[in-house]
């Protein structure tokens, strides 16, 4: 498709989606009315800069279904991602949304070289997380054989990879490295397996990680990007050139803005990635601020695709961490720590990568007055640590190791980032 045809299509779809949310989502209608914008003011894709932004906070404030545009009877699936505080972000999908998602995911897989002859293992988590089912539907859409392996049980998974001759896999890059490591421990060499395609996403990764995964698993690894607020995995994908991820921009319109001034940033320059869903029915969003930092590339790719490409994600414009593919906000930890009187309102998250698996340690300070004569055994202290770690697990959805510190030993933080020590060097 030529750039002009794409812009034309995007403009038409943008007008339609603005009209749709104006009539179906009170949140957007109010916002647009406040800004004195009517759907008819939006006719071309360039008009998008007139529209208001949507933030994670907006999603949270409208929990659970406030931003849903379609009636519940049209929603056939609901996913959820973690929020900055107690409430997760709820995303409902209509039948058409699931169809678009599967189609976009199939596009990604096709770019990687997956065909109906492949046996493809989906090793993202199945469940509320969009990774598992999102990738699964794309593989089925292509007609390849999907192996819904999910996460965990790595040795059995490797046995299947070898015995079934699995040719493709979708998982987080750190899980791919863990697979490589387990494979070596089990004495399986890369000549014994047939993996040739890896679709890696849900967490930031580096070119060095790609080289290592490719070398150790004997496959070609491609980036797969997505976020549940927009759709899930399938928003963008790398092609054989492995040089930037093509965005399914007929459905997800990308912009880069300066996260401070909120002004658009030209192609090639880094800033915060913003998406508008052009065709979504369940929960459409206008100019959603992803907080992911990257740049956009125009121009025809060597593969022939004309779709805009995005660079690797180089960071975040907020303090969100991605640990084992799960979004973690320091404020979530804070809310748990504050809910237990035994701990001072100071904490530190220490994130590391051990044997290619992310680890999270939460350091908290014991309050002086809570160290009483009943607490003077390791058993009592361990019990307290366990209570905190089980609360953290239920809020964060990942296990955190608690380390209890003596009173007044954690530095009082200056600003949010001071709560985090990330040793992963991504």
């Amino acid at each position, binding site marked *: 498709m030529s750039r002009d045809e794409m812009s034309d299509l995007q403009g038409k779809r943008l007008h339609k989606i603005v009209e749709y949310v104006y009539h179906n989502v009170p949140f957007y209608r109010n916002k647009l009315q406040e800004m004195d914008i009517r759907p008819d003011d939006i006719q071309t894709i360039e008009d998008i800069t007139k529209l208001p932004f949507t933030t994670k906070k907006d999603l949270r404030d409208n929990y659970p279904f406030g931003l849903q545009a379609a009636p519940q009877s049209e929603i056939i699936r609901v996913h959820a991602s973690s929020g900055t505080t107690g409430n997760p972000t709820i995303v409902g999908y209509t039948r058409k949304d699931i169809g678009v998602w599967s189609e976009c995911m199939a596009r990604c897989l096709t770019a990687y070289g997956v065909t109906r002859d492949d046996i493809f293992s989906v090793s993202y988590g199945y469940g509320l997380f969009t990774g598992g089912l999102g990738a699964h539907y794309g593989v089925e859409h292509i007609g390849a054989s999907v192996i819904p392996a999910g996460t965990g049980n790595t040795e059995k998974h490797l046995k299947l990879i070898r015995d079934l001759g699995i040719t493709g896999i979708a998982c987080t890059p750190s899980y791919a490295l863990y697979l490589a490591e387990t494979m070596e421990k089990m004495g399986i060499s890369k000549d014994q397996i047939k993996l040739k395609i890896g679709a890696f996403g849900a967490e930031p990764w580096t070119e060095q990680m790609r080289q290592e995964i490719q070398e150790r698993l004997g496959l070609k690894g491609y980036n797969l990007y997505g976020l549940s607020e927009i759709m899930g995995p399938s928003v963008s994908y790398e092609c054989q050139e492995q040089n930037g991820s093509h965005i399914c921009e007929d459905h997800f319109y990308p912009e880069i803005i300066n996260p401070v001034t909120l002004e658009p940033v030209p192609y090639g320059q880094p800033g915060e990635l913003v998406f508008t869903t052009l065709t979504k029915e369940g929960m459409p969003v206008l100019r959603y601020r992803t907080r992911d930092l990257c740049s956009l590339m125009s121009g025809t790719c060597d593969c022939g695709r004309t779709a805009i490409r995005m660079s690797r994600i180089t960071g975040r414009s907020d303090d969100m961490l991605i640990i084992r593919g799960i979004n973690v906000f320091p404020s979530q930890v804070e809310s748990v720590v504050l809910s237990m009187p035994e701990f001072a309102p100071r904490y530190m998250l220490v994130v590391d990568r051990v044997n290619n698996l992310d680890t999270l340690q939460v350091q908290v300070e014991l309050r002086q007055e809570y160290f009483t004569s009943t607490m003077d055994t390791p058993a009592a202290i361990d019990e307290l640590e366990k209570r905190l770690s089980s609360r953290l697990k239920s809020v964060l959805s990942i296990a955190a190791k608690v380390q209890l510190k*003596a009173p007044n030993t954690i530095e009082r933080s200056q600003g949010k980032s001071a709560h985090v020590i990330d040793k992963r060097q991504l």
Partner: protein
Amino acid sequence: MTINQLSVFIENKSGTLVKVLQLLKQANIQIIASSIADTAEYGIYRIICSEPAKAYDELKKAGVAVALSDVFAIELDNQPGRAAEAVECLSNAGISIAYMYTFLFNGKGILIFRTDNADKTREVITLNGLRFVTEKDLSLWS
């Protein structure tokens, strides 16, 4: 029947133990016996000392996580087998010992311990003719 013990939460980091000891030194507190229950990340430093209430206040003022707890202290003849006999009495009565440490004091073996049932422990000690040590005893001897 019981004596005061200081329990201090200390991290496994160099300098943490010395800080506690320096505070006790400044308050002119004499340590009579001590033991550390250590784990991979922290320790609980248990101290029998002169003027435990004063020591507790001083450490508390300095922001240390300290607790004052009651522990049993009994005196045994300094001969092989006496500790075994004493603990056997408790064990026969179905009492579990949470922690224990011993030291020699004025020619006698002193057994410090805490159990899961203070009332029953008191009863067993009395019934078996074991001798309690009081804080006064310790201060007289020191």
